[in-house]
């Protein structure tokens, strides 16, 4: 576990030394969300109606943005070879990198989302649902995205390919995430949705590290 902690701390520290990278992702989230009222019109009811879907989709795209560098920089400078040779499981290393990605993108996105939801006229309970579902759902996005990043490591045109691979697999998370906020708006609770999101996150946690490690070994060959 010391290796896990060290790798996690290293990756977070690397990103925090260049906070601009995180800021760009968050700025993309804000700008992409702000475009919807401009494109659709400022009618409050309509905006409140589409807000859950818009915010979740924008969060999904934003978390895909930074993923193509997740393993690529380690692959280019040789750190990945050292991780492959390290005496502790590559699965844990992949998991540590995804956890770091979540801390520097998923978490800020979830914390920023209620502010944007406010501009769409969501009520306080819906804002709570939005934050809660993003907190539970974004780890899944980081894990699936990390898998896509590992699969496309060293490929030509990897950025667009990564999105093509990851987005269909993210559909369940999107449906239950946006569905939870919508259920809250229409007066039902969001407990069930949150439970399913947690189940999806646990399933991703149980399966993707193995696949990521297998893909990284392929890339290292």
């Amino acid at each position, binding site marked *: 576990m010391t290796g896990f902690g060290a790798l996690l701390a290293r990756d977070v520290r690397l990103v925090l030394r260049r906070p601009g990278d995180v800021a760009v992702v968050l700025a993309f989230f804000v700008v992409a969300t702000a475009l919807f009222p401009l494109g659709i019109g400022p009618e409050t009811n309509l905006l409140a109606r589409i807000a859950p879907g818009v915010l979740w989709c924008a969060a999904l795209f934003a978390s895909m943005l930074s993923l193509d560098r997740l393993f690529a920089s380690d692959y280019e400078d040789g750190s990945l070879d050292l991780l492959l040779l390290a005496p502790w499981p590559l699965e844990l290393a992949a998991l540590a990198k995804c956890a770091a990605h979540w801390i520097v993108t998923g978490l800020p996105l979830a914390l920023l989302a209620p502010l944007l939801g406010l501009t769409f006229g969501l009520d306080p309970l819906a804002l709570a649902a939005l934050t809660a579902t993003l907190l539970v759902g974004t780890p899944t996005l980081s894990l699936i995205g990390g898998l896509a990043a590992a699969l496309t490591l060293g490929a030509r045109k990897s950025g667009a390919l990564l999105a093509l691979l990851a987005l269909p*697999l993210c559909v369940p998370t999107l449906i239950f995430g946006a569905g939870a906020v919508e259920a809250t708006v229409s007066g039902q609770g969001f407990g069930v949705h949150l439970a399913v999101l947690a189940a999806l996150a646990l399933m991703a946690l149980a399966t993707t590290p193995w696949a990521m490690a*297998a893909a990284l070994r392929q*890339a290292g060959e």
Partner: protein
Amino acid sequence: MADLHFLANPARFRRFSQRVTGSLAFATVLALAVGLYLALIAAPPDYQQGETVRIMFVHVPSAWLAMAGYGLLAVLSGSLLVWRHPLAALMARGAAPVGATFAAVCLITGALWGRPMWGTYWVWDARLTSMLLLFFLYLGHIALSNAYDHAERGDRAAALLALIGAINLPVIKFSVDWWNTLHQPASVMKLGGPAIHPTILVPLLWMAGALSLLFVILVLLRTETEIDRRRLEAADATA
């Protein structure tokens, strides 16, 4: 297992495949002729849907084959990753575009059928959406297997993706069903007709058989092409 090992040698597979494709092609043409006759001429028009019901005879088998094709892809990917079966990668390369094409045929015929029946080419219904997502999974697989300069790396990355996709397909299907029931409880899709009558079922099974034969023969031919292409590349590399 003996058969799998027998066909593991690409040259031997090629001889085997070339021997069977002739008779398979004959059987396909025959079955297609019977199936199309039964479907387009012999089958009675539906009392609700009229002549448009004939679209079903292509639409439904295409949906079955698109799904079966992904199953085949998953099995091939498993044998590539577990046993490094040399032919599995080549056959997966052959099968993916065929499966994707059947998914596309299913979507297109579905749209053409939907227009007269529901008055629209497309509704965001659960079944349509899951077929669309299956099509995207196929596209991702094809794109990934071709994304590398080193073809074998593409094969193995795509194999991992196919396995992950096969695990996730039921989850995607389930969540899309859930999503749809949330959004439109009274679906326009409820055809509510009677249980399938033999006059419809028999042509449907013939067409399903004929299109399955077509699927097999296309996969075999494409696999042969992939073997030849690998050989050419190997010859180029050594020359």
